[in-house]
């Protein structure tokens, strides 16, 4: 029975995970023309009045591709030439609080419509806006003699932002955050698998114990695969030298990675031998030690980024 449950669980787990991911990442917007896409809408203030001259900036999250548009006298805007993907949207207008929408997906077959209301007030995000100075007794001067960034020898290239690089960092952090969470979740069945191994490999063990151990091992392997995927696929930042505990974390992957492949292979061999009434023999005997080393390396990798050595 346990074997049947394990097989069913093992078979349907990828579908469940894919479905969950699909639901979580479901697009919030859908718009498309034949090749590029259009985002349109109308911007109003809180009372429903027209908000003209509001700059709408759509920045593609994964590559920093940017398109802008400005609202007309009727408050409407039209951002054209958007390739399918996720965009960060920013609405900036004089006298309004800047509104940011962190992620909006542009795809589909029709132009997407996004109407927004802006609150009256000073900008709360976006470009820095100097705060009032006159309420401070010795506030920074606005006189012409005050030094500027160019006085410090900083070139415009050094002081200008790079939306593409920010988008790359955002994507990297997003993927590594999932990697971190999945790694934590994986720890639970991993510990349970190690714990149930005590009743799975001895002389007087039952088939049910072995099935449970195998099911937990399978679940661990699947979750580990998802965890590894998000680490491997997270974009690299060019010109970054790996330093500090993360080096150890990555080095451990060279142990627990192959271990996570080898352990179930050896486990299946040991499982079959036990099921045939044989004593575990040959290379299958390495299942336990390999699993312990793998779990140890996984735990060390986890600790290396959690606790300061």
């Amino acid at each position: 029975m346990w074997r049947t449950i394990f097989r069913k669980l093992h078979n349907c787990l990828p579908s469940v995970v894919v479905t969950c991911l699909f639901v979580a990442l479901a697009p919030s917007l859908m718009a498309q023309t034949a090749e590029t896409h259009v985002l349109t809408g109308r911007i109003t203030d809180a009372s429903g009045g027209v908000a003209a001259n509001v700059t709408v900036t759509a920045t593609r999250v994964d590559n920093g591709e940017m398109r802008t548009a400005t609202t007309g006298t009727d408050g409407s805007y039209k951002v054209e030439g958007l390739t399918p993907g996720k965009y960060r949207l920013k609405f900036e207008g004089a006298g309004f609080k800047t509104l940011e929408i962190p992620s909006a997906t542009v795809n589909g077959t029709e132009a997407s419509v996004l109407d927004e209301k802006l609150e009256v007030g000073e900008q709360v995000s976006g470009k820095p806006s100097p705060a009032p100075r006159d309420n401070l007794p010795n506030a920074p001067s606005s006189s012409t003699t005050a030094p500027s960034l160019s006085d410090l020898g900083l070139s415009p290239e050094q002081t200008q932002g790079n939306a593409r690089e920010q988008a790359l960092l955002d994507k990297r952090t997003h993927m590594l955050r999932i990697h971190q969470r999945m790694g934590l979740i994986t720890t639970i069945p991993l510990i349970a698998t190690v714990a149930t191994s005590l009743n799975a490999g001895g002389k007087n063990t039952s088939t049910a114990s072995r099935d449970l151990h195998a099911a937990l091992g399978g679940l661990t392997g699947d979750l580990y695969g998802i965890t590894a995927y998000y680490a491997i696929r997270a974009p690299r930042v060019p010109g970054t030298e790996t330093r500090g505990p993360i080096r150890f974390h990555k080095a451990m992957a060279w142990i627990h990675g192959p271990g996570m492949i080898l352990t179930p292979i050896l486990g299946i061999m040991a499982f079959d031998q036990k099921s045939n009434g044989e004593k575990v023999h040959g290379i299958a005997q390495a299942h336990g030690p390999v699993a312990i080393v793998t779990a140890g390396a996984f735990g060390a990798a986890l600790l290396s980024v959690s606790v300061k050595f």
Partner: protein
Amino acid sequence: MKTIAACSLLLTLPPIAPAADSQWILQQSTLTYHVSHPLHQSEGVSHASRGKGVCHAGQCDFLIAVPVKSFDSGDSNRDLHMIQVTRGAEFPIVTVRTRLPESVAASATINADLEIQFAGQTAQYKQVPFKLETQGGETHITGTIPATLSDFKIDPPSLLTMPVKNEIPVRVDVTWRPQ
């Protein structure tokens, strides 16, 4: 002859536009931010600040600029996350501005009002205490800016689902010399 003399005199006079009475240059700097997490503490250090002070009519305007990327916590992964969460690629420079009376150079302590631009936001800190030590014409200033993540609308990053504390005090250790 008189004309030539008058022209020569004019050429040797300083320009009519307001000129700085004196200037200060940032000689050496160490800025250190401190982040607290339930599992561990970490610090990021930068020695890459540039600064200048311009004094006129008894008041000095100071500007310090430091690249966000220059902070080193000893862990490249943490530094990249820091740059991401503070939008350091989009807003690559942190600036600190203050205005002080020229006379404070002789004091042992000062309270400065700071205006800091960071992560696309501007925050002001009133009456931040600093210690001054003048030696050999150089003025050594130390103090701590009581910065917080929320001052700059930065979402606290988390490790193992536990967020870091909102407080990120920044230790300042700078040496200025008159130009």
